[in-house]
């Protein structure tokens, strides 16, 4: 099942070494790029040094010797930086970046580089573009129809898969969703990760949420002092405990019983009779009052099912009947 994959880098990372002319192997082995660098350095050095070395063969020769030495040192320095990962052609960009950084740093600390948007234009796709694109699509469809000679209109792009956006909870106040409590830790301002302090969020209560503060604002979070303001919760205690979730439709036939004291201290010794939705408790039919011969009360409790013949009972009665006759 598992599969081994190798990167392709290795193929491009080999040393192309010039060993020397045929039949004669040079004592030093260097890459072609090193020879090229040396040659370039030598030429540059020669161009610079020969005019400085004075006239005459001695001067020129001396300059060439100097150029040779200098170019060897220079090219070796360059080749220390150059390797398979950092090819020679990537060096100019590196040097320019460092040079610019050095220029910026040479100025005072405040003289920094500001990132500015410049002339960036932000816009939605213009309607004209969308219309233009629609016309293009129409033309393409028409062309395709003519070719196919089939007058079936298939809107281009309709078959594209509509991807459902993954669930993302926005970390901002959702003004449209309903009352917004003010006590949650806001993320609508920049927070300092080191001090971990937060600034308060202004919460708009207005005509849209006339009841909001009394119900939804149990505690106002105060960031500066880090303590709660003394805003008492206005949640109706009993309602909170016994009312049903508001999202559900009310049950018409069985309204929820709301009481002032919803909880009994002892469940087994109620002070007041409990109103249950169930019908009246079944009368006591324990062994003390019910004759064992009496038919089970449940059978008669539901007259609709009374006439149903109980097959198993009949079978058992037939089995047991001879035993009684014997006696």
């Amino acid at each position: 099942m598992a599969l081994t994959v190798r990167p392709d880098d290795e193929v491009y990372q080999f040393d192309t070494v010039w060993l020397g002319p045929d039949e004669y192997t040079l004592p030093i082995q260097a890459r072609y790029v090193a020879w090229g660098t040396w040659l370039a350095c030598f030429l540059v050095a020669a161009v610079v040094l020969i005019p400085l070395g004075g006239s005459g063969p001695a001067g020129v020769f001396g300059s060439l010797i100097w150029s040779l030495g200098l170019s060897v040192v220079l090219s070796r320095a360059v080749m220390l930086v150059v390797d398979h990962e950092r090819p020679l052609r990537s060096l100019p960009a590196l040097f320019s970046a460092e040079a610019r950084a050095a220029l910026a740093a040479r100025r005072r600390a405040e003289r920094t580089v500001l990132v500015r948007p410049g002339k960036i234009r932000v816009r939605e796709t213009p309607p004209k573009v969308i219309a233009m694109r629609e016309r293009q699509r129409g033309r393409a469809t028409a062309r395709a129809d003519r070719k196919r000679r089939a007058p079936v209109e298939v809107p281009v792009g309709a078959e594209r898969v509509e991807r459902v956006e993954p669930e993302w909870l926005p970390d901002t106040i959702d003004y449209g969703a309903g009352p917004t409590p003010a006590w949650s830790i806001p993320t609508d301002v920049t927070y300092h990760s080191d001090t971990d302090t937060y600034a308060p969020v202004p919460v708009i209560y207005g005509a849209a949420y006339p009841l909001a503060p009394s119900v939804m604002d149990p505690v106002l979070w105060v960031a500066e002092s880090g303590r709660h303001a003394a805003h008492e919760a206005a949640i109706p205690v009993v309602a909170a405990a016994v009312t049903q979730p508001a999202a559900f439709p009310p049950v018409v036939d069985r309204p929820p019983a709301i009481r002032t004291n919803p909880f009994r201290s002892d469940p087994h010794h109620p002070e007041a009779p409990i109103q249950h939705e169930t019908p009246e408790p079944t009368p006591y039919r324990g062994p003390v009052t019910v004759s064992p011969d009496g038919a089970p009360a449940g059978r008669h409790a539901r007259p609709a099912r009374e006439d149903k013949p109980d097959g198993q009972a009949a079978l058992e009665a037939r089995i047991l009947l001879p035993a009684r006759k014997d006696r």
Partner: protein
Amino acid sequence: MARREEPRPAPLALALREISGNITLTKRSAYAWYVVPPARWAWRADGDRRGMVDAAGIAYAGLAGRRIRTRVTSRPYPVAAWARGLHARTPSPLPGAEDSTWSDNLLAQQRYLRTSATAEKEVYLGVEVAPRSRITALTESVMGKAGNRELAHLERDVELINEMVASPGIGGAPADPRRMEWLLHRSIGLGLPAPGGLMSPPGLSDQWETTDLHAFTEGVVVRPTPLGRCVQMVDRRPDHDPLTSYVAVVTLGRMPEMIIPDPRGPWLSATDALPFPVEVSSTVDILAGTATRTGVTKALLRIRDQQRQYQIHDVDEPASLTRQADHARRIEDEMSHGDDLVSTRTEGWYRLAVAGRTEAECMERVRAVRDLYKRRHMDAVLTKGQASLVREFVPGEPITSTAYRRRLPMRYYAAGLPQVSTRLGDRRGPLIGIIASSVRRPVMFDSHYSTEVKKASGLVPIVGRQGAGKSVLEAAICYQAARRGIRTVMLDPSGPLAALTEMPELKEFSEHIDLAKAPAGTLSPWAVVPEPQPGHFDDQEQFDEAVDEARAERKTLAIDIARMLLPAQIDSNAHTEALLLRAIRDVGAEPGSNYWAVIWRLREYAGLKFDGATMEPDDPGYKRLRDEGAAMHAQTLADLLADTAETRQGRLFFPPLTPAGQEIAARPPHTEAVLTVITMSGLVLPNPSVPREHWSFTERMSVPALHLASWYATRAVYGLPRHVRKVLALDECHFLAMWPVGRALFQRVGRDTRKYNVCCLAASQDPADTLNMDVANHVAASFVGRIEDERVAADALRLLGVPVDAGYEHAISTLSQPGPDGTPPDYREFVFRDADGNVDRFVADLSYNPGLLAVVNTDARQPGEGDADPSTVDDYADFTDDRVSA
């Protein structure tokens, strides 16, 4: 020269020229940006993972010829939004106590999340649309905006890209303005703290303007140092003190051979394991194999030429040369004859940015990244030219350095999978813990997400061996449910969770029922099966069916409980079942019946009166069985049952022989308390591995008591209107699975969870219980704690929907790993499968609520004992099993 006092602005213009929808235009290029949704990697089979990599590879191969940019950034967990959502979904929270109001509860969780949870990863994918011609760029510079014709041309290309990016391997969706804004903000202010609210609040406007861009670029200052190791970023916006951070960009270098799927996880997601955010920017050219074959051929020719030189000079060639030649030949073959996935090649640069508040911290983090990749045999290099590398993270900026170019086959690139992320929990409900694998993400569990949102069942098995922390998890879920005002009934046979009812914030709204002290007859089998209520059904037919079902359940329950009460030897007698069946049939299935009637019947079968006096054959009602053996056995059964009624444990099953006693038995268990904890003090459950014959009397009594207590707790579900949210927590469910009647209860509860809007937490030691009880279809979510037995662990994996025999059994057995000295850790780990099917490991952490932690702290030692060092106190020991076996 006069020295300037005011700093002269030195604007560094971005390459970006225009943002039109999800398209960014620069002078030279246009990119369309997409958001890649998170993908699951953990707890999946190798085949699935390989499939993921291949699908991604095929999708990327479809983008051949284009340059793509991947940006991974992070977004802090939306703590406030989560809290507001939770509050909105809690219509009637309990007010709580003075120091622990509902607000305090939410605030405590938010504070915990702020300090504990890492930011969430967001992955953006930019695909080059088409290179811009010089004419269009010139037109733009004249007109100030891109021409409509050009945009329409781009749109046509973008539609094609949309299709490729939306294919299953990537699944990306075009980035909306909100996302584009976030990406730009995080890229320009690289390494600076995440901004708070961007744009206007949602719902008002989803558009943004150029001025919005100004808002977060103007204050950002970059301070490069020549030949420096990092760049200083300063946020100088006027609304707060300047913030400084140091950013270093690490470039990925040499990469090793890799096994796909990589057992260590995707290589571009490896940094998720680090405790700090890492920004990723990769720029990759996707190259069709046929188009790039020339490059490989050329390389092969150069290798051959080099080999020839060595031969001419009679010098030993490096061994690597032969290897490289072979490799080149294979690549050339792949490019010529392979399919898209095999032949496509990539060339790109992979950069990771880390930030620290100081330069030392930044370098420390760089070391951490390098060490991380070193363990994967990859090089992560801190190169020079940091100032320009930082700019590369901004969309639209060109590549500043061509060094460290990586040439990878498409499969290798696709195996990077930066979108792999861990997502667990419904992100709606209260906090229950933190993901424990590679990242620290919060795990939320809304007890009614499955029933109300997913319209599925609500059965939640919690399995694990003794001490796995099942009860702690149950307590945490039930506590939060109760605080949300959800009716919660907990059955905790061993009893320590009764302390929940004493917590100040719950005390007023909760009730503790100790069944051991309950009136006799509370657990009469006829009484515990709830009578269906007409209001719960749509029509008469359904109601009649439910009534019939309840009657059948009462009979079955009565027979099974009677058999459990009998010693194993008596139970195995052939007459037992027949006699009990007949007696219970005669007694009937009405809620008012009880075991005394059964005893009476049995005595009649033995020719005796209820008080034991002998009946004559002539007496009316004489029913002695003709089979002497059966008659004698009926007498034995009656006597045994009557004896049981006289014991302390047995009296619960037999109501007193008074009318009032009957009424007590028929009373529903619940009151209007929001939290009801039902305990059974003194219950001694047998070891399941010990045969039933060897159980003691108390152990024998405990099993039926547990069964009936479960039924008793379940009655609460049926006593409330159907739509009301309810939470039911049952414990020791492995005992229920041993008897048909227990399985019936489980099936009934599982089936009814959706209809009655119930979340049923079922704690058990063996996942096979759930698998064997035909309730697997009703499982909404499941928690698995530490299980050491391989077979049981395999069952647990089946419950989690995780492939078996893929090595995950070992992972289950290493949850909550004890320390080297054998002491259990201070936390408890679980593997959680949420309602959406995500699976991962998390730590159940209650440290945000010290009060709750103190309640579930079940350290058996008394306070003040010698070794009670506070640092070694085990907050999560599973008290349940300790007390049960005590």
